[in-house]
C-alpha cells in the first residue's frame, strides 16, 4: 500500500441526489444534513423550480403500469429496501445514518425498516381492506354487467411533503403508487435517507423515473411540489394546518395529540406498562406516542410511577444497542427544554424541563422524558405535543365529558364503561380507538392510520355495461 496517510483521498460527504424524470440530479444548491452532533453526514441536492415543473409534467404524462404489476414492484422494492444495497448503501449503513441523523434509537430504526417492508410486501391486502365492499376496480369485472360501484382515482399525480420524525411514516404513501398515482416525494431535510432509499428501491424494482420522483426543495420551493399535483399529503404542526387546512386537495397529517384515558373502574397499576410504552415506545418521537394521560381520580400516584420508570431509562447515543430515547443536537435539545419550561408554567413537574436535555458531550443531547401533572382536564398544556416523550397527566371526571379527549389521533381507553366507549367511537375527532392494553403506537398493515389513505385518494362511481 503505497499511499501515505497524507495522500489518502479526502472523504467526500455522502451525496443524496434528487431523483427526477431523467434520473439522478446533483444540484449546485446542496444542503448539508448533519448528524446529532452537528457533523455533516450527507449533502442533499435541492432542486430548483423548473426541475419541479418538468418532473410533474413527466409524472402526468406517464401511464401507470397494470395494478398487479404495481403491487409486484412494491413487494420487490420492500425486499430491496429492507435487505439490499440501494444507492450505494447497505441496509446496516442506512439504518446507522437514520439513527445518527434523526436521533431515533438504532433498534427502533431497524424495527421500523422491517415494519415498512412488511407493510409494502402486502400492500395489496391493505388496499383491498380499504376499498368499499361493493366496489370493483375494473370495467371488465363481470359484476359490472348488472351495475356496480367502481373504485377510481381522484387524480393522476400525488405529492407528499414527507415527515422526518420517524422512518415508519414512509410506509403510507406507497399506497398511492399501488393505486396507480404517479408520486412526487419531497423529503424532510431532517431525515431524507429513508425516502431516498425507498424511492431508489421502487425504481430498482421497476417503477419508471416518470412514475416516482424524489424532489428535495428548500422551504420556498416546497409549495411547487404540491402545486403541480392533483392531490397532496402534508405532515406538520399547527402552522401547516393553518396553511393548508382549507385546501380540499391536501390531506393533512397534523398534530397527533394521542392520549390515554383511565377510568376509575380500572387500576392504573395494571396498565403502567401500556402507558409507559405509549409515551416513550418506538423512540417516543411519533404522532402516535401519547401526549396526554387522563385519569379519573388522583393522578399523583401515576405521575410518581411514570417518573420512576422514565428516570430509569438510560441516556445513550442513538446507535447504542440499549438506546431507547431520542437524541438531538444539543442546541436544539436545549431550546426544546426551555420551551417545555415555559409551556409548563403553572403545572407540577415530576420530570421537568431541567432534566429534558441530557448532553452526551459530543454536541448531541438525549431528550429525556418529561412528566407534568395538570390541575384540570381543560388545562391548556394537554395538547402540547413535542418530538420526544413529553406527557401531560391530568385528572378527568365524567362531568368533564369528551372535550378533553377530542382531537386525538389514537386514544387508548382503559375502561370497562361501555356507554363511554360508544361515545368515544362515535366521536369524529378521535381517529383511532384502542380499548384495553394496546399502546397508542400499535399499528398493523391493513388498518387505517388516520382513515384509509384511499378514502382521500379514491372515489366510487357507478359503472354498468351491456
Amino acid at each position, binding site marked *: 500500500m503505497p499511499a501515505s496517510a497524507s495522500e489518502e483521498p479526502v472523504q467526500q460527504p455522502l451525496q443524496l441526489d434528487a431523483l427526477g424524470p*431523467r434520473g439522478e440530479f446533483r*444540484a*449546485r*444548491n446542496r444542503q448539508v444534513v448533519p448528524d446529532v452532533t452537528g457533523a455533516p453526514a450527507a449533502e442533499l441536492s*435541492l*432542486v*430548483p*423550480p*423548473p*426541475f419541479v*415543473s*418538468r418532473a*410533474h*409534467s413527466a409524472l402526468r*404524462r406517464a401511464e401507470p403500469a397494470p395494478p398487479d404489476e404495481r403491487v409486484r414492484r412494491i413487494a420487490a422494492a420492500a425486499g430491496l429496501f429492507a435487505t439490499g444495497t440501494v444507492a450505494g448503501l447497505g441496509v446496516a449503513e442506512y439504518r446507522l445514518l437514520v439513527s445518527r441523523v434523526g436521533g431515533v434509537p438504532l433498534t427502533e430504526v431497524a424495527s421500523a425498516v422491517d415494519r415498512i417492508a412488511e407493510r409494502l410486501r402486502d400492500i395489496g391486502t391493505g388496499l383491498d381492506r380499504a376499498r368499499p365492499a361493493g366496489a370493483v376496480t375494473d370495467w371488465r369485472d363481470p359484476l359490472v354487467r348488472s351495475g356496480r360501484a367502481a373504485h377510481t382515482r381522484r387524480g393522476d399525480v400525488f405529492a407528499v411533503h414527507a*415527515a*422526518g*420524525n*420517524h422512518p415508519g411514516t414512509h410506509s403510507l404513501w406507497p399506497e398511492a403508487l399501488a393505486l396507480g398515482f404517479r408520486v412526487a416525494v419531497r423529503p*424532510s431535510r431532517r431525515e431524507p435517507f429513508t425516502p431516498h432509499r425507498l424511492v431508489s428501491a421502487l425504481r430498482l424494482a421497476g417503477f419508471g423515473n416518470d412514475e416516482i420522483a424524489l424532489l428535495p426543495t428548500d*422551504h420556498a420551493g416546497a409549495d411547487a411540489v404540491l402545486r*403541480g399535483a392533483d392531490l397532496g399529503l402534508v*405532515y*406538520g*404542526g*399547527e*402552522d*401547516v394546518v393553518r396553511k393548508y387546512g382549507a385546501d380540499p386537495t391536501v390531506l393533512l*397529517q*397534523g*398534530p*397527533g395529540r394521542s392520549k390515554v384515558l383511565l377510568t376509575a373502574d380500572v387500576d392504573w397499576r395494571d396498565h403502567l406498562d401500556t402507558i409507559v410504552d405509549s409515551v416513550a415506545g418506538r423512540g417516543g*418521537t*411519533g*404522532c402516535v*406516542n401519547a401526549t396526554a394521560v387522563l385519569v379519573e381520580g388522583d393522578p399523583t400516584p401515576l405521575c410518581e410511577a411514570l417518573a420512576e420508570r422514565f428516570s430509569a431509562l438510560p441516556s445513550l447515543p442513538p446507535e447504542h444497542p440499549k438506546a431507547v430515547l431520542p437524541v438531538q443536537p444539543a442546541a436544539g435539545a436545549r*431550546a*426544546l427544554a*426551555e*420551551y417545555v419550561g415555559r409551556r409548563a408554567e403553572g403545572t407540577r413537574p415530576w420530570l421537568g424541563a431541567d432534566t429534558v436535555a441530557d448532553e452526551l458531550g459530543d454536541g448531541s443531547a438525549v431528550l429525556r422524558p418529561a412528566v407534568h401533572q395538570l390541575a384540570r382536564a381543560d388545562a391548556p398544556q394537554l395538547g*402540547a*405535543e*413535542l*418530538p420526544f416523550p413529553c406527557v401531560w397527566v391530568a385528572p378527568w371526571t365524567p362531568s368533564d365529558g369528551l372535550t378533553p379527549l377530542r382531537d386525538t389521533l389514537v386514544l387508548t381507553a382503559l375502561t370497562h364503561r361501555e356507554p363511554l366507549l360508544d361515545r368515544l367511537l362515535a366521536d369524529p375527532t378521535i381517529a383511532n380507538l384502542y380499548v384495553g392494553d394496546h399502546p397508542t403506537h400499535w399499528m398493523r398493515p391493513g388498518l387505517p392510520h388516520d382513515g384509509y389513505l384511499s378514502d382521500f385518494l379514491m372515489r366510487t362511481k357507478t359503472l354498468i355495461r351491456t
Partner: protein
Amino acid sequence: MTSNTSNTWEILDLPPGVRPDPDEYIKAAMEWHFGPDTGSPYWLERAKSLDFDPRTEITSLAALVRFPNVASELRTVRAEDLIPRGYGENPDVRGVFESGGTTGAPKRVVLHGDWRRRLLHWTGEQLDAHGFPRGANWLGIVPSGPHIVGEFFRGSATTHGRHGFTIDLDPRWVKRLISGGRGGEADDYAEHVVDQAADVLRSQDIGILTVTPPILDRIARRDELVELINDKVRAIRWGGTQLDPDSRQVYRTEIFPDTVFSGNYGSTMILGFAGERPGLGDDDPCVFDTLSPYVTFSVVDPETMRPVPYGERGRVVASHVSKSFLLPNNLERDLATRVEPLDGGPGDSVADIAPVSRFENEDVVEGVY
C-alpha cells in the same frame, strides 16, 4: 478645463463601440456634470453640500467612492432637474423611468437618446456574440413601463430584430398582492400574463423571447408552451429577477436544450443592465459584464464598503456615469460573487446574483414533524 467647446466633451460622445480611458473619461464627466453651464440643476445644487469639489478631486473612476449614495433622493427630485443643462433647450429625452419600488417609493431617472443608442449598440454586439439571430420577431413579457426594461426591449426588438410583440407585466401589483396575503390572486394574474403570451407564441413567428424567471417558470409548467418555444424560439433572454444556478442549468440543458439562453442583470438605476458574458461553459457561474466605464460595479463588504477578493461574495455597488446621467456609488440590494472584468477593464464583473438572504427561523414549533 474652462472652455465649453465641443472638443472638450468629445470623450463623452465617442462613437458607440469605442471605449474611453476610464480616468480621462471620469474627469471630463465631472466637468460636465458639475460645470455651471452643463450640469443638471439637481447635481449643481447637490454639489454645494459635498465636502469635496468633484471637478478637481474626482479624477479617476476609483475616486467615485467619495460620493455619497444619493439614490434615495431620486424619489422626490423633479425629472427636469435631472437633465444636464449642456443638452440645451431641446434635450432628446426618451422617457422618465422608475425603479421597482421594493424598498420604498420608486426612484426616477431620465433616459436620453445618446445613452439609449450607446447601450443598444453594445447590447446588439452582445446578442450577436450569444448567437441571437438578427431579423427575428421578439416577444417581450416585461413591464412596458415605468421600468426601463420595456424601453430597451422595444429598442433591441426593432434594431436587432424585426417586430416587437409585448405582453405587459405589473410587478408592483404582484408584490402588493403577495404582501397582502393574496397569493392566489397573484397566481391568477401571472397565469393571465402567460395565457396572453401563449396566444402570441401560437399565432406568430416568434424567434426571440424576453422574459422574467418567474414567468418562465410558469411557461415551463405548460408542455404546450415548452414545445412551441423549442419549435420556434431560437433565443431566450431573461432578466428582471435572478435565476439560481440550478434553474439556469435545467433550462439550458433540459428544457430548452437547443435554444440560446442568456441573461441580463438590469436596474433602472444604472439606466440599463449588465449582460451575460458570452461563451460561458456549463459549469461556469453566470457572469455579468457592464458597459464600462459608463456603468461599473464594485463588489464590497457592506460593513467596510471595501471590495471583497475575487471569487468572494459581497454587495453590489453600481455607478452610472454617462453624459446624460450621474449616479455614483449606489449600494444595491443584491449579493454577488466578485469576478475579474474582461480585458482588465475597469470595475468588477459579477456572478451568481442573489437577493440578500435571510436566516431561517429557529423557533421551536410544537409538533413531532
